[in-house]
């Protein structure tokens, strides 16, 4: 099984730093800004972005985690009910700019589900999207506002993001599907 490393730890760190700068530039600071990571890797990336934003701007932005399982469009199409993760958004999102954070942008279906889930918590002034890797092959009219790395891939490949907190190392791999 072939596996190619797309990003190493240093490159991930630089991408996160650049995205943090871009988020601040686009939104003219951290006013009314909140980050919501999509479980299971997006929440860790959201925490790192928040740490970078605090380092750059000296402002603390709230970080939440969103599980989109109950909003999937393929429930009942699988043999087993999909795995459920934690959701925790313990701040008011009404009137805020929410930056959704995910590891990989692919079909766009997860982001569609995340936006549906988010509006059940309130009415944000705006929703933006930050991803570590955009691998193409969109099935919905969705694009990212902030991208760590654009990576053209084939559909029969997998993009796997590893993070120290969950996987013991920081790296992104493109892998041949077995």
């Amino acid at each position, binding site marked *: 099984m072939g596996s190619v490393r797309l990003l190493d730890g240093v490159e991930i760190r630089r991408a996160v730093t650049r995205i943090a700068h871009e988020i601040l530039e686009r939104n003219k600071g951290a006013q009314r800004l909140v980050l919501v990571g999509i479980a299971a890797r997006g929440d860790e990336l959201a925490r790192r972005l928040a740490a970078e934003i605090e380092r750059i701007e000296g402002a603390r932005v709230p970080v939440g985690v969103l*599980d989109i399982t*109950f909003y999937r469009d393929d429930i009942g199409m699988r043999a087993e009910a999909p795995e459920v993760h934690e959701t925790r958004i313990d701040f008011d999102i009404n009137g805020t700019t929410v930056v959704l954070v*995910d590891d990989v*942008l692919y*079909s766009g279906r997860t982001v569609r589900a995340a936006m549906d889930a988010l509006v059940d*918590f309130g009415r944000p002034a705006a929703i933006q999207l930050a991803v570590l890797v955009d691998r193409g092959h969109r099935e919905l009219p969705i694009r990212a506002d902030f991208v760590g790395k654009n990576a053209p891939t084939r559909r029969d490949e997998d993009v796997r993001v590893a993070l120290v907190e969950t996987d013991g190392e920081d790296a992104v791999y493109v892998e041949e599907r077995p």
Partner: protein
Amino acid sequence: MNKHLLSINDVSAEDIVRILDVAESFREVGTRVIKKVPALRGRTVVNLFYENSTRTRISFELAAKRLSADVINFTTSGTSVAKGESLKDTALTLQAMGADAIVIRHSSSGAPYTLTRWVRGSVLNAGDGTHEHPTQALLDLYTIREKLGRFEGLRVAICGDVLHSRVARSLSFALVKMGADVTLVGPPTLIPPDAPAWGVQVSFDMDEVLPKLDVCYMLRVQRERQRQQYVPSVREYARLFGLTRERVAMLPEGALIMHPGPMNRGVEIDSDVADLPQAVMEEQVTNGIAIRMSLLYLLLGGGGPEEAGHDA
């Protein structure tokens, strides 16, 4: 997970942990501005209640609605059942209408099992005769885990009319499965003779058991199911097995008081005891919705032919 939930014996200890974990996510959904998720959109859940029930039926109805399923409530009075329709014909009718899940309560033990032979969807037992009431047991487990954080070695007494209680059976099986020490407490006439085979202990003396408990679970005296005189009088029963202020004082600090409802205040539990902070009946009701959402999600959320495509 099994396709149906008829008995606690249908679920393993790992299944129980999964059901409780998923219920925790649904508790969070219950705190949102919009307490509803689209998970079971387009699915149909039928509440088929051959016995009166308010809390269980409403709880299942709310659970299904918060999952965006369509809900049909089918009660026996004023329907085809009152006109003499058999369970089989009712089942076939619901089947023909495309029910994805049937939640059934019936006065005959085993009726939910019989129902599984006639329908393609999932069957959930909401109480059958004196047999089982598994969703009540699971919501009780959720409440105990939330308050006390564990099951292993936990000392639980289930007190009162055990003989007629499907809650006592399901809860005993579930607690024993999770490693708790269960003692059934009541007058000898109201303890089932096969109780030792459940893996539980039996005591006829409530005052001896109380000081050693983490959970004191009171059962309702089910006068409507009792076909003969099991206790000399309600007053004597209340004196020997009612949870009074004096008995609460014998419980260790931090012990929980639970009751599946509806309560007979002044019989198995004194009115002021039911309102104490360590009495968690309201939490049990709230958790019931989350547990039933979890079960409907886990039973109806799968069922597809194969893995759907990878998406991100």
